[in-house]
Every structure is written in C-alpha cells, then in structure tokens.
C-alpha cells in the first residue's frame, strides 16, 4: 500500500495540473453566433450536445448538427456564413481571424448532409487560408458561395 502512494500522488497532481491549465488559460474567444434556427439543431462542444438557439455563441472546434426537421444558419466574426439543411453535420475545425497579425485560417469539415458556405473576410484577404473539407474532397474558394452535399457512407 505504502509503495503505491507516490504513484497515487503523482496521478492526482497530474490530474490537477491538467484541469488547472485550461482554467488558467484565457477563456476561448467567440468566433461567431447562431443566427437562424428551425426544427432540431444542436451545437456539440467537447462531446456535449446542446440546443442551438438564435444568438448562441460559437467556439473554434464546435460541431453544428441538425435533426431530420432541422435547419441552422451561423455567421462568423469575419462575415463568413455557413448553413445546414436537415440531417446534417459540420465542424468548425479551425478559425483564426486576426488580420492585423496576419493570422487568417478557416477549416470547416462537412461530415453529413447538405450545407452552404458563403465567404467572408478571411477568403477575401487570404483565399488559400480557407478549406472546406468533405470525406472525399477539399474545396478551395475564391470569394464565393458553395453548396456541398456529403454522401451517406
């Protein structure tokens, strides 16, 4: 029993440090907001799903998901807009919008269903910084609107 104690302490300390680091770090910044919702629509954050309501704040790495009767439209800080039809899912995998620091990046993974992307400032300032990914393809844009339908697996 005694010989296990240091290990236990180390594990507990490790756990404390792991939880302490995100708490000490700055709260994640909002990257946009939900604007339009109808039917069942959700934001999935760190594995937890919550109802998407108009005005709800979005964070980098959030997933958006709709049910069979659901639709969802969001605006991001750089004026990028994304909407989903029913039975659809997309992840806001990477978002950097700090033009004064030259930090521009947008990666959206479309996993399921139907979506529309309309470009914003990131695509305007740095077209190569935008990547729309489906399971089979990567779509790059030059300031535009794109419709995507992801095939059922």
């Amino acid at each position, binding site marked *: 029993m005694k010989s296990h104690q240091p290990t236990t302490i180390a594990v507990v300390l490790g756990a404390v440090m792991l939880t302490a680091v995100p708490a000490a770090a700055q709260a994640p910044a909002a990257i946009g907001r939900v604007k339009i919702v109808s039917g069942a629509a959700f934001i999935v954050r760190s594995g937890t799903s919550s109802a998407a309501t108009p005005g709800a704040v979005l964070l980098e790495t959030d997933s958006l998901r709709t049910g069979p009767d659901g639709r969802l439209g969001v*605006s991001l800080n750089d*004026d990028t807009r994304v909407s989903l039809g029913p039975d659809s899912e997309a992840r806001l995998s990477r978002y950097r919008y700090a033009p004064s620091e030259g930090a521009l990046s947008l990666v959206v993974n479309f996993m399921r269903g139907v979506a529309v992307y309309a470009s914003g400032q990131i695509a305007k300032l740095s077209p190569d910084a935008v990547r729309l990914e489906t399971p089979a*393809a990567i779509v790059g844009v030059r300031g535009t609107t*794109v419709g995507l339908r992801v095939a*059922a697996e």
Partner: protein
Amino acid sequence: MTVRSLGTALGLASIVVAGCARVSIQEPRQPGQDLAVLLPDSGTGVVGRARASNGAGSVDLTEARAATRVSRDRSPTPVAILSEADVQREFGEALASLPPAPETFLLYFQFESDELAPASRALLADTLEAVKRRPVPDVLVVGHTDTMGPPASNFQLALRRAQTVRTLLLAAGLDGNSVAVSSHGESQPLVITPDETSEPRNRRVAITVR
C-alpha cells in the same frame, strides 16, 4: 449501376454540356460521392470560383451552378451545370437558412472632430433599419482618421468617433450588448495619401451590420 459506369455517364453528361446550355445531374444519389456546386452570391449574384480536389485530381468550378461529384479515390467528375430546379431541390433548405449578407455603412466626420458630417446623420436611420431587419443583429463600429497628426492621437480620435456613433445608435434604441466598437486610427485609409494629409474620405466610421 456501378460507380465506374456512373462516372462514365457523368463524363458524357459534361460533354453534352459543352454543346448545349445545361444538363441536370439526376438522382438517385450515388453512394460515396460528395457533390460540390458553385452558387451565385445571394443578393449580388456575383459568381466567384472554387476548386474541388482530392488525391486523384482537381476540378475548377467557374460559372453559376457548376457542379462536380467527388468520391474518395477517384478524380472529381468533369463539370456539369445544375439547373435552378436541381439547386433548389438539393440546397433550398440550406439556402433558406443562410444568414443575410452583412451590410456596411460609412459615416463621415468633420476635420479633427468627433462631430458627424451633416450628410452622414441621415445614414444612421438606414443603419437602424438594417439592424431591425435581422433576427440576431451584430453591429461592429470601427473608427478611422486621415493622416493629419501623430498615429497615437489618431487612434484615440478614431476611437472617439466610433464611440460617438455607438452612443447615437444606443440612443436610437439598439441593445448595447450587440454593438462593439474598435479603432483602426490612421492605419487603414480608404484613400491612400501621404502622411500629414487632410482627406475627408478617410475621416470615417464604418458600421458593419451582421
């Protein structure tokens, strides 16, 4: 129908496209194939460009409703043009949920002052209307100056200009939580000038309604 024969059929379809106006990519949906379509921007109708690619190749979409299908290990299919009806059937619900494009309003200011130019006061009403049209409005107010005077004091002047506009918007009934303010000082002139140049078009506040 196998994937290969579908690919051939689509290839033929795009050859037909070259000869006539448009062709419909018909259902049934093909398993394992994603669809990418270039759409005109809502409102302006402007058509940009997009490129769909994977490990096997890439296809450029350069005109309205140009579409390609992509499966994992095959090059994207040659471009075919969807009909308006196809676009509506495939993307109608998603398009109906796309938030409206942002609108920007430019207000101008008197020299070295946070006093609005008289003609710009009327634009405030337009801004308010644009805000009220939106379900969940975000308003971003960004102040700018011309290049007269030192950058540091211009940063402050631009910030005062933005705050003046914010105060006017709140007095007209907007929710303070939805109106953000920032300053770009003299760093982003609308009209490029040498330093120490008085330029009315650069003494402005840009209001973006999203």
